[in-house]
């Protein structure tokens, strides 16, 4: 129990299949509190599936996942507790288009933890200020640029006061000039000590922020290493090939 409590996330012997196709093969990964993990790998390697298993947007068939010591199983109570602790940011933002930016951040607090409207809106504004777009609060998501939308999505997740943040390719759907504003927001978050797992192809970000880089291919973790070792002297041939391909 004590060992469990130390790790923010503890994944052991995780296996998952879509029908007969195995997407995750025997994954073991421990993430310490305040640790920043970057997961990379070719598309279809199972990296998104892996982080989506952590808050059960995908169900795994075998293995154990512990989040802050709480096992992720069929218990609804545990799942609720885990989703309270884990925030997620998606590739396509998934903001609620029928709600204003402020409402996007405030309504989830009201619906999922029964917050009072005033307090929810105050918190929404404080996190919108933190991601530097308080002036857009009354607009609708469709009226913002991609980078602004993704920052709102980050603020919305932070409003739930999560202890862990999952990022599923947060900059992949953005125009190049908007990548930086989102990455800067994430860097600021990392500096505040947030536990983060980031699936991304932004190797500059990985090098700068990550405590460890995880390389996945075909549903397996091929290599885990500190960024300087991982990028400068990867041990596995498959990692070397991947890095050669993305670094041009």
């Amino acid at each position, binding site marked *: 129990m004590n060992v469990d409590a130390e790790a923010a996330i503890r994944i052991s012997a995780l296996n998952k299949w879509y029908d007969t196709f195995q997407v995750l093969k025997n994954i073991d990964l421990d993430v310490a509190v305040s640790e920043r993990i970057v997961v990379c790998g070719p598309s279809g390697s199972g990296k998104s599936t892996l982080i989506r298993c952590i808050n059960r947007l995908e169900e795994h068939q075998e293995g154990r996942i512990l989040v802050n010591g709480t096992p992720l199983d069929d218990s609804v109570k545990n799942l609720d507790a885990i989703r309270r602790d884990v925030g997620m940011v998606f590739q396509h933002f998934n903001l609620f*288009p029928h709600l204003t930016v402020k409402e996007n951040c405030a309504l989830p607090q009201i619906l999922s933890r029964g917050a009072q409207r005033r307090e929810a809106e105050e918190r929404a504004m404080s996190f919108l200020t933190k991601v530097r777009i308080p002036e857009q609060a009354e607009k609708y998501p469709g009226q913002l640029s991609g980078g602004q939308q993704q920052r709102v999505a980050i603020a919305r997740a932070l409003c739930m006061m999560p202890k862990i943040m999952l990022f599923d390719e947060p900059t992949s759907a953005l125009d190049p000039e908007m990548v930086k504003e989102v990455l800067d927001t994430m860097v600021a978050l990392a500096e505040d000590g947030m536990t983060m797992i980031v699936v991304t192809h932004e190797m500059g970000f990985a090098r700068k922020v990550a405590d460890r880089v995880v390389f996945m291919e075909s549903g397996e973790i091929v290599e885990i290493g500190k960024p300087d070792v991982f990028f400068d002297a990867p041990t596995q041939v498959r990692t070397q090939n991947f890095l050669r391909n993305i670094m041009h």
Partner: protein
Amino acid sequence: MTVVQANSFTTISTTAAPPKRRRRSFVTLLFGDLTASCLTVLTGFLLLSFVPALNWAIIDATWVTTDPSTCRQGGACWAFILAKFRFIIFGTYPPDEQWRPLLVMALMLLMVLASLSPRLWGMKLLCAWGAVITAMLLLMWGGVMGLSPVPSSAWGGLPVTLLLALLSLGLGFPFAVMLALGRRSILPVPRLLAILTIELVRGLPLVGLLFVASILLPLLLPAGWSIDKLARTLAALTVFAAAYLAEVIRGGLQGVSPGQAEAAKALGIPSWKIIWHIVLPQALQKVIPPLTNTTIVMVKNTSLVLIVGVFDMLSAGRVAATDPQWPAPYVESYIFVAGIYFLICFGISNYSRWLESCVQARSYR
């Protein structure tokens, strides 16, 4: 630590206002100067004298008359509409009590106007509607607060049409939402029940459903039970509306990206709140045009109740024309009733276009 400059993406959109497009009004177009006025008058005159229907409806028409039998002399008998106005609008409702249906219609209009803006939609408005509908039915029925009782068989005309349309759509809508959700459910029992209901009701003609409700249903009920005929008719219309609305709403639900529900789940929102607050509003926004379509069809479908003997506005119009004092002015009567239907449906359709433009306004940069 470098962070992005605040406002770096907000300054881009400050461009000059676009030039205003000049719009000429209808009146300036037709009577702008002397030539236009002359042309307009001339064209109007030519149209009137060469198009027989216009001639019939306007030039040769009798507008006022003291002697009904001489009303028709080659033209329309609009005097008849003036004389029978109250009967067509209120049907056989006791003349001394006709202020009650009038008040009901005024209440209805008031509530519809109050409900137009989506900003006001919510629990309070729903409760207000519930209270007003109860009040409307009490007003119509009477028997309370010194109002003389009027059985539903004596109701008629426009209030019946409006009540049937409003209540069948209003009551059908929640059922439709349930059916649509049921049909998409992963649980087999609700799904099968929903599919069965929708397919069965959609597979029957409305006339058939009305007959079942008005003739078969009383036979199936235990002896001594009876349900008001108007209520049975309303039930048939409601079920019919629900089945059609359900499929429209299901179409909308299918159009909402799964990412929406996923994001809501990841935020820890309970599943029924996800449906109510996140998925359903978006689904309905996507299907405003087909919803309008079904609404308009249902308003006009209420006229079918005349075949089971409910006295709606169309029946009133038909019966009014059978008065032997008048020279059987069916056409005039039907045109008048058609005009009222058209105004209602045109209003609904304009309103829906306005709603759509509200939704669209949210996605312009």
